[in-house]
């Protein structure tokens, strides 16, 4: 069920866009209204979530230290994994965001008879890294539909991505890698019993949405070979706020656009917000310097304590007998 429902939902969304534009003539809805609403949802939702997290206090500095602290001058500090300065924190965050440092540590525990064995397990890291970087490059590549004239560096990225010079239109490497990575991530979620057990329907839904967007995109380029000039005319219309429908771009384009719209509209309300959340993560973005620099808790409560005077009052006879000095003498 946790796979079937999100899969059906994704298929339904795709079918809606197909039928709506192919048979019902709802091009304006799917080509103009929905994309604008989705972008608005994304921007407002994303900002709202960040602000909402940001409004919660950070009462303590709780970095997870993954290396030697700064202590005596002759002991080598691990300045990235246990940062004590802002620069160190920036380095740590960059490693997390760009190359998924923590995931790279991943291992796998197995039980063989009476023993536990720990083995290397870098596949998740590799799959995640390939997926995220491919996705980023594909988004950057798509900017050519939203900029006119297309800047030289975008053309450069485009050329580099197609450097295999295979097929017509030229095959993008990122199309191969993202399909491979998504396939791996999906299969892993289904096949690894532990991961299937802990997965929720809302883990499969965004995965299916992204797979849907990618497959529709791939189909547009390599199978249907849709009218790119017409597409660019429409996308430029959207970004210049003079939206218009161009006839003949084909239903598959609307499927791609609608699934992509669904994805970005869903983004702020889902786990996909990890993209924004990681930067705020208190175990990663704080320096381990709270013995050097005072950190203030904005809601530090006044509490009742058991004072020394009360303690001495309760134990003064016993203390005197044990030869301990007393304040009250």
């Amino acid at each position: 069920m946790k796979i079937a429902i999100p899969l059906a939902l994704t298929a339904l969304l795709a079918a809606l866009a197909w039928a709506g534009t192919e048979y019902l003539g709802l091009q304006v809805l799917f080509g103009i209204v929905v994309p604008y609403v989705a972008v608005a949802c994304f921007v407002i939702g994303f900002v709202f979530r960040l602000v909402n997290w940001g409004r919660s206090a950070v009462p303590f500095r709780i970095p997870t230290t993954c290396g030697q602290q700064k202590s005596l001058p002759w002991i080598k500090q691990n300045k990235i994994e246990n940062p004590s300065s802002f620069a160190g924190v920036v380095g740590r965050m960059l490693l997390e965001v760009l190359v998924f440092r923590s995931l790279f540590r991943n291992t796998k525990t197995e039980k063989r008879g009476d023993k536990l064995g720990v083995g290397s397990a870098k596949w998740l890291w590799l799959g995640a890294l390939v997926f995220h970087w491919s996705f980023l490059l594909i988004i950057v590549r798509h900017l050519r539909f939203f900029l006119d004239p297309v800047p030289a560096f975008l053309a450069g990225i485009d050329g580099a991505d197609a450097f295999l010079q295979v097929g017509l239109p030229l095959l993008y490497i990122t199309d191969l890698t993202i399909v491979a990575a998504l396939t791996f991530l999906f299969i892993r979620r289904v096949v690894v019993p532990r991961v299937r057990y802990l997965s929720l329907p809302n883990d499969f839904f965004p995965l299916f949405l992204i797979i849907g967007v990618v497959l529709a995109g791939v189909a547009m380029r390599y199978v249907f070979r849709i009218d790119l000039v017409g597409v660019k005319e429409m996308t430029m219309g959207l970004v210049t706020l003079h939206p218009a429908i161009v006839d003949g771009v084909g239903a598959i384009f609307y499927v791609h656009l609608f699934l992509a719209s669904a994805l970005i509209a869903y983004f702020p309300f889902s786990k996909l917000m990890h993209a924004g959340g990681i930067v705020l993560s208190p175990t990663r973005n704080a320096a381990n310097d709270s013995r050097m620099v005072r950190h203030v808790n904005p809601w530090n409560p006044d509490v009742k304590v058991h004072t020394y005077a009360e303690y001495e009052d309760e134990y003064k006879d016993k203390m005197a007998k044990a030869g301990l000095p007393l304040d009250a003498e």
Partner: protein
Amino acid sequence: MANQVIPENELLDFTYDLPKTDWMHTPVEFKPGMYCHGAKEKTVEAVGMPNGHAWSPADEDWHLPEGWKETVLNGMQSLMGKYRSFKLFMDVCVRCGACADKCHFYMASGDPKNMPVVRAELLRSVYRRYFTLSGKMFGELVGARDLTEDVIKEWYYYFFQCTECRRCSVFCPYGIDQAEITMMGRELLNLLGLNTEWIAGPVANCYNKGNHVGLEPQTIMSNVEFMMEDLEEITGKTYRPSFNRKGAEILFVVPSGDLYAEPGTHTFMGYIMLLEELGLDYTLSTYASEGGNFGFFTANDMAKRLNAKMYAEAKRLGVKWMLGGECGHMWRLVNQYMDTWNGPADFLEVPVSPVTGTRFENASATKMVHITEFTADLLYHDKIKVDPSRNDHLVVTYHDSCNTARAMGLLEEPRYIINKVCNNFHEMAEETIREKTLCCGSGAGLNAGENMELRMRGGFPRAQAVRQVRDAYGVNTLANICAIDRAAFPALMDYWVPGTRVTGVHELVGNALVLEGEGERTLDLRLQELPRKPKPASADAASGEGADHVQG
């Protein structure tokens, strides 16, 4: 105690196979040996915590206070405003599963609700149901569920099967820390008067008497007297460490376990030999006689209340700075909480070692130095004489305690000391030490007697690593810098790796420390015969090697 647990082969008779029903539809089952007794009404009330009442985890009806549901939901709302960590960790998990097999309790029980991600989902599912739009609308379809009494029971069972060791957070791509989630879960349970007696009892002791084990001032003094008599027998020297002395330069705070029972007391003897040999102007306190803080395993306010006495006592006694003993969670708190709770410590000075002149800049705000930092600095500057051959009967490995490793990064200092005072040191497997260290299985208040099966399971991955170095190098000694380790490891080692000695690092220092004008030492700090010195035939080699360490 440990041998009442089911036999070893039965304990390991489990698999990682997963149940047919998903976790949300698998009710919690309270298995004897896996949970602690509930906190008694009077223990909870002794420190003014809310809703103490008569109940037992084994009962069907927990007699939850009226309006308990609102209490919990309001509590969650409040905690989300107070802790960005809580809100963020409720939202950003993608359930990639990287944490799943990193938890020692999962590794050694196979219980899927002990995978950190699922343990967190126990709370997240309630968060989604009441605090997110999608959860309110779609319920179970988005992993949301109603808050029921069964959920509360499940929280109790599993949030007290987490030692807040933070190992999962090392592997999480977003740094989600199950310790933080467990702390929130326990804080919510405390609103309903639900805690374990093993935690609530020490909290009450610590608040009223100054330490977890409930030692009154005269008992502390007589315990110390016994230890000093032993030291006199071992060294021929008379030691009279001062307590509650005004005008000392340094206030020395140790975990009370070191004043109470073996092998902690041996560690304490090591501290005193060192500090006395240096002629330091230091004092201890019967009021601030606890560096540890079981309040941290209940609620933030309680932890702050127990911690307050450390700075208060330093101020009253007029010391210049503070030195802290070997304790794990004490040092998480000193490093990440103490100054924020009860600072600023502007009545103290930046610590400077009176022996070496080293200024501990890394403690310039809290003004508190870890004793392994202090001792490593002494050894580096050759300010003390040590004879590592006195530890030659020990083949040592070192266990990083969770908190000093992952909430501080105190990794090299203890290793430097051990390498100076011992000749035989071997590391355990790389994936079980430093930031990846495995928990003793008894931290965060779980070192009770009635949950012994849980402790033996949770400690198994660590014990297996000890067993590997025993088999490979003949390791017979497990060194550590944590009072909970010293209390918990003896039972764990008896069970899994019998014959392994558990020792604090400063016990090893005490053994090796060459005292001014001392004759030949024949006993170690446990009053056991030291191995005989080599005969003159090999004296050259021995003294040549020794000179390396003894100089200065």
